């Protein structure tokens, strides 16, 4: 799995120059069992076996993996986390937890996370409706064998009251360097949250979001149809895309040489550095990505940049090297990896 890129990182799909990936997740629970956090070890074990049986009976794709966490090392679990196949909470859990992953990594099913099942579809670019269709199909298959906890009044019953009803969480990961550079990002994101959506961004040292990546998702799950929830999110995201496009245009117009210089420098550092931290790598890769998206940087493939985003995350670096490494060693090995991957890339 580690040697190849997940389908959602291909850099393809609609509006892939701004929307990195689209994800739709459904929370489901099996009737007759307590929620995972409240269940006894025996119940959790029985649940796992019941769900595994249903998945073997109705697999999410012809080729898939069913992995129990007790068979994974800590690093391997972190890899699944870095690949967005399991959640942070799930990565820390121990026995009787599992995940099912389709060969192309588009479909994953977390078992015994906060909810008994979390069905997830992750796709490259902006295609939330396709993701919803696929996750619904997987859901329809599994409900043939599994009786879900459901009530006509409250819908799908979930461990946390914030997920009840449809159990849906739809989100997009957006790359918004234009709005960040023009300092319009706070304004746009605040408008987005006013419309009832949640925005998340990770900030490292300094003021800029690391990698200029933002995740935007729906917050409400009860009282609206799944399609309506996704359509509303789509509509708002389309507006953010437009804002980002005009920000990029304005930037190119304003100070083209400066942008060109910044992108060229990022490429230079990545291509020749011998020590690099994951947050520096993230930020430089974001700049590189911006260069490709703006058409300033020719000759470098978006897919290579996406791959590097993933492969330079701490657990991936360690897995590729086959051992646990100190931070300093990691920084060196990360730089080696990037140099190797960019060896054949040249600016036109």
């Amino acid at each position, binding site marked *: 799995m580690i040697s190849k890129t997940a389908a959602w990182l291909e850099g393809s799909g609609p509006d892939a120059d701004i929307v990195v990936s689209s994800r739709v997740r459904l929370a489901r*629970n099996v*009737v007759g*069992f*307590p*929620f995972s*956090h*409240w269940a006894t070890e025996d119940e959790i074990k029985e649940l796992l076996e019941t769900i595994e049986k249903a998945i073997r009976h109705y697999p999410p794709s012809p080729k898939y993996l069913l992995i129990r966490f007790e068979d994974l090392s800590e690093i391997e679990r972190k890899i699944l986390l870095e690949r967005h196949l399991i*959640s*942070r*909470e799930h990565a*820390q859990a121990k026995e009787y937890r599992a995940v099912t992953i389709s060969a192309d990594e588009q479909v994953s099913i977390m078992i015994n996370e*906060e909810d008994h099942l979390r069905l997830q579809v992750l796709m490259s670019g902006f295609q939330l409706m396709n993701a919803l269709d696929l996750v*619904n199909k997987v*859901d*329809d298959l599994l*409900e*043939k064998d599994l*009786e*879900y*906890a*459901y*009530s*006509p*009044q*409250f*819908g*799908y*019953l*979930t*461990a*946390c*009251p*914030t997920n*009840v*009803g*449809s159990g*849906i969480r739809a989100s997009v990961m957006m790359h918004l360097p234009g709005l960040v550079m023009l300092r319009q990002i*706070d304004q746009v*994101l*605040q408008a*987005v*949250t*006013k419309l009832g959506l*949640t*925005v*998340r*961004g*990770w*900030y*490292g*040292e300094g003021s800029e*979001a690391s990698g200029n990546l933002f995740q935007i998702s729906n917050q*409400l*799950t*009860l*009282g*609206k*149809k*799944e399609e309506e929830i996704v359509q509303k999110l789509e509509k708002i995201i389309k507006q953010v895309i437009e804002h980002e496009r005009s920000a990029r245009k304005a930037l190119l117009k304003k100070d083209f040489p400066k942008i060109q210089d910044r992108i060229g420098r990022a490429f230079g550092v990545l291509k020749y550095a011998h020590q690099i931290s994951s947050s520096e790598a993230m930020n430089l890769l974001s700049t590189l990505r911006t260069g490709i998206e703006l058409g300033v940087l020719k000759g470098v493939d978006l897919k290579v940049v996406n791959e590097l985003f993933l492969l330079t995350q701490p657990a991936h670096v360690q897995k590729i090297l086959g051992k646990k490494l100190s931070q300093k060693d990691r920084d060196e090995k990360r730089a080696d990896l990037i140099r190797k991957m960019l060896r054949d890339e040249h600016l036109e």
Partner: protein
Amino acid sequence: MQCEVCQKKKATVHYTEIVNNQMVKINLCEGCAKGKGIDIYSKFSVSDLLSGLAEIEETEIAHGTQECSRCGMTYREFKDIGRFGCPECYVAFQDFLKPLFEAIHKASRHVGKVPKRWSKHTSQETELKTLEDELTKAITREAFEDAARLRDRIKELKEAKRRHS
């Protein structure tokens, strides 16, 4: 800057989230950030919401010890943890849930997807509601023959339902 959780290590992760139009900044060390992860928001907000609701507050004094007969979780425990114990808790704590869901979701009734094995039940439920409405109307306009026919059909449906459950 110190980590706001462990108060020991240096805060290197400055996590920002915009929730309900408010910017929340939390400064964490790397370890605590990993531990807290993205769930910071939902864990805080549910118990905040629960303790912030006056309506729930009142009834809670009387029913704080009310517990789910299936899994043993009390309402007070639900309030502290912010998570239900089992699907049956939704029945046990039903009285408190409407205001809670209105506060979180601005709605308290599901209108989305219905599992296949429930779709038959749901259509029966809808039929029952329609028949009951018609019965009331029939009685009002004193159409007693219609009313008798409707009453029999309702009885039939209700019995079928009882046999099923």
